[in-house]
Every structure is written in structure tokens, then in C-alpha cells.
């Protein structure tokens, strides 16, 4: 914490004339600036060697009717100690223009396009102002997150075309894929420009599944938002609901009982486990190694059936609630988990020995889809993809939540950034997750699993929370409104950060390797599109 104080004092000294206001919320320093200064200050936080801030999230909130302003927030994760720092600018009533930081900080690219689509603020100087969320058939001037936009508006369909980037030249042709793909997966459109075999350019167009989740949150009360958070991305139901609950709990100053913290850790790791095992199998299957797929799918199914028996839902829905968890496990159930996992660990160990000694499989995985460390840093890549490109970040260790501060945790980091490295990170995390579950079962304290949340938050107060889901860091920003309702809820799934980086990873590889690369990132469309 001293370290953070020093950082704050340093910032105050450097920019004392420009800082309009400074407050500490949940221990995070929030600096307010004039909008004209933001580019300079954001660049300072990003570039200064003692700070080296990664832009983790940029979002805007329409503060009407609390205040007649739209506020844009910039959340930076600092290299030193993993501290957070927030910059904020206010745009008064009719003002819609704010300076874009994308020319200096690449990670802001999609965030600023999203802000423009959803709230209608225009990032001046942004290199690419095509629509992101609103597809071309949306009417002009539709900005769903503005407060004067009714949540149940019926949109009229318009005509329009999206301007894809084209490469022209002899022998260059385009391969459009999607939005409906061949497998049982979600919709998204990929456009490859190829000359011969290697991909020259890839353009990804998403947001087909945009369901208006952030707007729907504004209809809910703080306590009831959990069920919507569970449906942001089905495979991360527990991670998302946990992150949401944490934000609301710190907003309502609820301290959950220790047993609930341990149970949350247990369930989060079980969710990580079945998803990672499924991913390892799916990557092998994309390299045409179906033996591994069959074995992994079997293990995954065993875990999911176990979750169904324990919590009554295969995706752990209905387990989290504001104030704790709704499911308690007795000691025989915990023993059952340990016994089941011991078998799975043994089977999985044998399978991975086989995988990593299989020359034809490793040949497909090695040097395929390399994500360079610098590229990953520029995009602010998170989670498994980041850790396989030498980005040593893990919320469980850097910002411990639930019971992680009491547990031992190793964070696997690899350097090569190819598909094999991403498989290795997953394999290591599977073993790590099993070890964490063992620690949890050994140390779980007795007591209640739930505490009633009664107090309500004053409107305009907000809280931020982060959870390391199995894909990477999930962030929730929840601002309280009138009568215990939600004023603004910003959801960030790790997929939103990692999707654009695929456009940088794919070129140079051949199209048949793309499914393999895509699978090794395994990003959620639903969590991205919201």
C-alpha cells in the first residue's frame, strides 16, 4: 500500500495543476482531469517506467439524472505490485467529443469504438471509427446506454454495408466464414485475405449476439442482478456471478462469512477444471487427434455430473448470491470431490504424457499462431493467452479475492506464445486447480455460508471487482442508482480484450491452422457481444 501512496504522491506532484479532484474508492485512486489533458496523462501512466500501466478497462457512464454529465473512466493495472489506478474525465451535457487515446495506447481501440456505439461519445482522433456493436442495419443515432433510450425500444431495420478492409493484388482472394459456423459454436464472422496458402490479413466481425445485457442490468436491483450475470457467458457462469456479487458486496459493505469464501474458491476452481480439460481435448481434436478428445470429454462430463449432484446445476447457476453462496457441502461431499478428482488427475496425467510425446501432434502445435510478448502487452492480453506469452498476471495472486489469500498458488508462465504454450498453461493450471481444491477441502472453516445483505447504497456510489475466470480476468463495475437499483453495470469478459489480438496472430499461418489457433484462445462470443 505504501507503494501505491508513493505513486499517488508522485502523480500529484507531476500534475498538480491539472488534477481537478482526487478520491480513493475501495483503495483505488481516482484522478479527475479536464478532457484535453487525458491523452498526455494516459500516455504518462502507460509509458513511465515506474508505472507501466496496462489499460485494463475503459468505459463510460451516463450519470443523468444524478449529474448532467457523461463520465469516461480509464482503469490502468500498474506493473508494480499490480495496483489499480483510475483516470476520469467529464463531458458536460451536450458535449459529445473526447480525445482518443488509441493513437498512443493500442488497447483502447475497441473500448473507444464501443463507447461511441453505446453512449454516443465520439473519440476524436481514433483511427478506425467504423461501427462495432451496432451493425450496419441499426438506425442512426441509436445509443442504447444513454439514459433517455428506453430499454425495450423496437429498432427499425435500415440498409447499410460494413466496410471491410481489403487487400488488392494479383492472386489475392477473400475467404468469408460465418456468422454461422460449421461446428456447434457461436456466431461470428471472419474474413481472411489469402494469397496462396498463408493468411495475409484477417478481419473479425463480432457482436452478432448482442443482447443488450448492460442495459438490462439497469432494470434490475443490485440483489437480483446475479441471475443476469450468470447468463453473460454460460461456460463462465460462476466466474461472472462471483465477480458481480463481489462488486455489489463491496458496494453494500457486506462481509461474507469465511466458509462462503472457501466454497466460492472451490466452485470457481471446479469450473476452471472442466473448461480447461475440455479445451485440451478440443485443441487436440482440431489437430485431428480424437483419442484425446474422447478422453478429455469423458473427464469433463464426469466433473459436470459431479457439479450437478453437488449444486443441482451443471453450470453452477443459482449457487452464488449477494452475501455468500446458496449451497453448502458436508464433509462426505468434500471427500467425494477429492476422490473423484484423484482419479481424474491420474487419468489426465497419463493422457498428457501421451500428448507431449506425440511428435505429429506437437508438430501441429509448435510455432503455430505465435503471439509475441510485445503484441500481447500492446493489446493488454489477459488470462491463459497472456500467460503463455510471458505476461505474468493473475488476479488470484495480484488482487486476491474469495479465499485465495490463504492458499498457495503457482502461476504457470510460458514464453513462446504458440498453441503448444497455451496448451501447456492449461495443463499446468489443471494440476494447480486440483491442488487448490485439495487445500480448500483441508482448510475450509465451519460456519454459515450466507449473510443477509440489508443496507442499500447511496446512488452514484460505485464498486469495481475482478475475478480470474478460467479464460482470464473478468471485471465488473457496478454503480448504484435509486432505491437499490443498478445505475450502470459495465461487464468485461476477458474475450473482449483477447479477440482483436487474433487479427494479429493469424497472418502468416495457413487457413487450416486457424481453427487450431482460435481454439487455443477459446474466446467467448457471448461474453464479448453482451
Amino acid at each position, binding site marked *: 500500500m505504501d507503494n501505491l501512496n508513493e505513486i499517488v504522491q508522485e502523480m500529484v506532484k507531476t500534475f498538480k495543476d491539472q488534477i481537478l479532484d482526487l478520491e480513493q474508492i475501495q483503495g483505488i485512486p481516482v484522478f479527475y482531469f479536464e478532457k484535453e489533458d487525458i491523452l498526455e496523462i494516459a500516455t504518462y501512466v502507460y509509458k513511465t517506467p515506474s508505472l507501466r500501466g496496462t489499460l485494463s478497462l475503459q468505459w463510460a457512464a451516463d450519470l443523468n439524472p444524478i449529474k448532467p454529465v457523461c463520465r469516461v473512466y480509464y482503469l490502468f493495472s500498474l506493473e508494480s505490485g499490480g495496483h489499480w489506478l483510475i483516470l476520469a474525465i467529464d463531458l458536460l451535457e451536450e458535449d459529445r467529443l473526447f480525445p482518443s487515446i488509441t493513437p498512443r495506447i493500442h488497447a483502447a481501440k475497441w473500448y473507444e469504438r464501443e463507447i461511441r456505439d453505446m453512449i454516443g461519445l465520439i473519440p476524436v482522433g481514433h483511427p478506425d471509427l467504423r461501427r462495432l456493436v451496432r451493425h450496419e442495419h*441499426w438506425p442512426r443515432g441509436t445509443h442504447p446506454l444513454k439514459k433517455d433510450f428506453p430499454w425495450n425500444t423496437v429498432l427499425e431495420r435500415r440498409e447499410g454495408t460494413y466496410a471491410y478492409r481489403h487487400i488488392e493484388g494479383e492472386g489475392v482472394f477473400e475467404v468469408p466464414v460465418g456468422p454461422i459456423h460449421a461446428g456447434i459454436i457461436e*456466431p461470428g464472422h471472419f474474413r481472411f485475405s489469402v494469397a496462396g496458402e498463408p493468411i495475409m490479413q484477417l478481419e473479425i466481425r463480432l457482436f*452478432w*449476439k448482442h443482447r443488450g445485457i448492460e*442495459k*438490462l442490468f439497469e432494470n434490475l436491483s443490485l440483489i437480483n442482478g446475479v441471475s443476469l450475470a450468470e447468463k453473460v457467458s454460460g461456460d463462465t457462469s460462476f466466474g461472472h456471478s462471483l465477480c458481480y456479487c463481489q462488486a455489489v458486496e463491496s458496494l453494500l459493505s457486506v462481509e461474507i462469512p469465511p466458509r462462503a469464501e472457501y466454497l466460492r474458491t472451490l466452485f470457481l476452481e471446479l469450473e476452471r477444471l472442466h473448461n480447461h480439460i475440455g479445451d485440451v481435448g478440443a485443441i487436440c481434436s482440431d489437430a485431428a487427434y480424437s483419442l484425446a478428445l474422447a478422453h478429455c470429454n469423458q473427464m469433463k462430463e464426469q466433473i459436470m*455430473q459431479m457439479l450437478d449432484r453437488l449444486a443441482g446445476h451443471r453450470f453452477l447457476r443459482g449457487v452464488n448470491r449477494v452475501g455468500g453462496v446458496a449451497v453448502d457441502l458436508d464433509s462426505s461431499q468434500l471427500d467425494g470431490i477429492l476422490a473423484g478428482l484423484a482419479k481424474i488427475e491420474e487419468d489426465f496425467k497419463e493422457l498428457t504424457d501421451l500428448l507431449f510425446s506425440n511428435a505429429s501432434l506437437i508438430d501441429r502445435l509448435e510455432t503455430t499462431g505465435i503471439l509475441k510478448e510485445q503484441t500481447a502487452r500492446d493489446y493488454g492480453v489477459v488470462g491463459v493467452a497472456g500467460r503463455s506469452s510471458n505476461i505474468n498476471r493473475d488476479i488470484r495472486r495480484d488482487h486476491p479475492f474469495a479465499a485465495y489469500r490463504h492458499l498457495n498458488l503457482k502461476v504457470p508462465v510460458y514464453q513462446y506464445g504458440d498453441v503448444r504454450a497455451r496448451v501447456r498453461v492449461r495443463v499446468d493450471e489443471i494440476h494447480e486447480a486440483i491442488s487448490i481444491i485439495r487445500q480448500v477441502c483441508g482448510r475450509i472453516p465451519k460456519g454459515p455460508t450466507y449473510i443477509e445483505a440489508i443496507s442499500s447504497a447511496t446512488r452514484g456510489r460505485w464498486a469495481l471487482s475482478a475475478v480470474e475466470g478460467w479464460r482470464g480476468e473478468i471485471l465488473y463495475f457496478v454503480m448504484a442508482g435509486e432505491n437499490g437499483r443498478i445505475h450502470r453495470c459495465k461487464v468485461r469478459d476477458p474475450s473482449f480484450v483477447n479477440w482483436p489480438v487474433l487479427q494479429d496472430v493469424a497472418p502468416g499461418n495457413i487457413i487450416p491452422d486457424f481453427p487450431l489457433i482460435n481454439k487455443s484462445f477459446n474466446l467467448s462470443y457471448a461474453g464479448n457481444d453482451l
Partner: protein
Amino acid sequence: MFRIIKKSLKKGRVTGQYPESSVPAPEVSDATRSKAKLFHRSLSIREVDTGSCNGCEMEMNALMNPIYDAERFGIHITASPRHADALAVTGPVTFNMEKPLKDAYRSTPEPRLIVALGDCAIDCGIFKNSYAVTGPVEKHIPVDVKIPGCPPRPNEILDALLTVLGRRKKE
């Protein structure tokens, strides 16, 4: 390798190791039943996601794992709607996916079965009336079978599909 093979031999079969579905099978109209009769021994399904949370996709994938192994009943997933006998649609239909859904529907040869899979596909669930959602699947294309659940478990999906094909034992 040999260890794994030996282990698999020792383990025996895993297919069928799942609890019976406790949800009653969906009602199937006579018209649907007679349509389904044509496909008696096989059913090629094309899955179309129009805005789900991907829970339904995971369960559809699970349907193909060695434990449920829907292929043993001739149910398989095809890559193209042109090869499909049935479309399984998941999720509320979003504003952006309405057109792709209709395209997929038009590309599916007749006779075709349309399955609305999951609560969202049936009545939009929690996303009802959102500005970005244009309604349940039924509003855009005719639906033959509805499989409720959020998401339906693989054994429930399997049960429902076999009921449609008239291959489930009557209780």
C-alpha cells in the same frame, strides 16, 4: 499408449453412464411426428446459435461425448444447413442474428424439423423485450419442437429428440 489402451479395456464401456432424465419429454404434435417419421433411422442436425449464452452449445457438444454418444441413435451434427434434417436453434433471436437465421432456415431442405432448444429460444427468457432482441425463434420461423431448460441437460435433449423420432419406449 499401450497403458491407455489397456486401461480403456479394463474400464469397459462408459456410454450410458448418466442419470435418467427427470423432466417429462416435450409434447409432440401429430404433424411433427409424421414429419419426423421420414428420418426414422437418422437425424442430421444443424445447430444455429442466435444469441444464447453458450450454455446450450456446451450441452449440445456434450451430447456427442462418449458418455451420451448420440451418434449411436443416428443423431449427428452436420456442418451445413443444406445437409440438415433439423435445425436446433438456441438463444433469443437478436437483432443482428435475425437475417442469418432466416438464411439458414431457407437453406435447409424440406421436410425440416425446427427445434427451439432452451428457455431463451422458446420465450427469450431473461432477455425478453430487450432492444437488441427481436423475439423468440417462433416469431421468425415455424417451430416444431420445444426443449425447455436453462440449459437443458444432455440427457433431457437426447430424451426429447428420441421422443420426436418416436423411438422412446412409452411409459
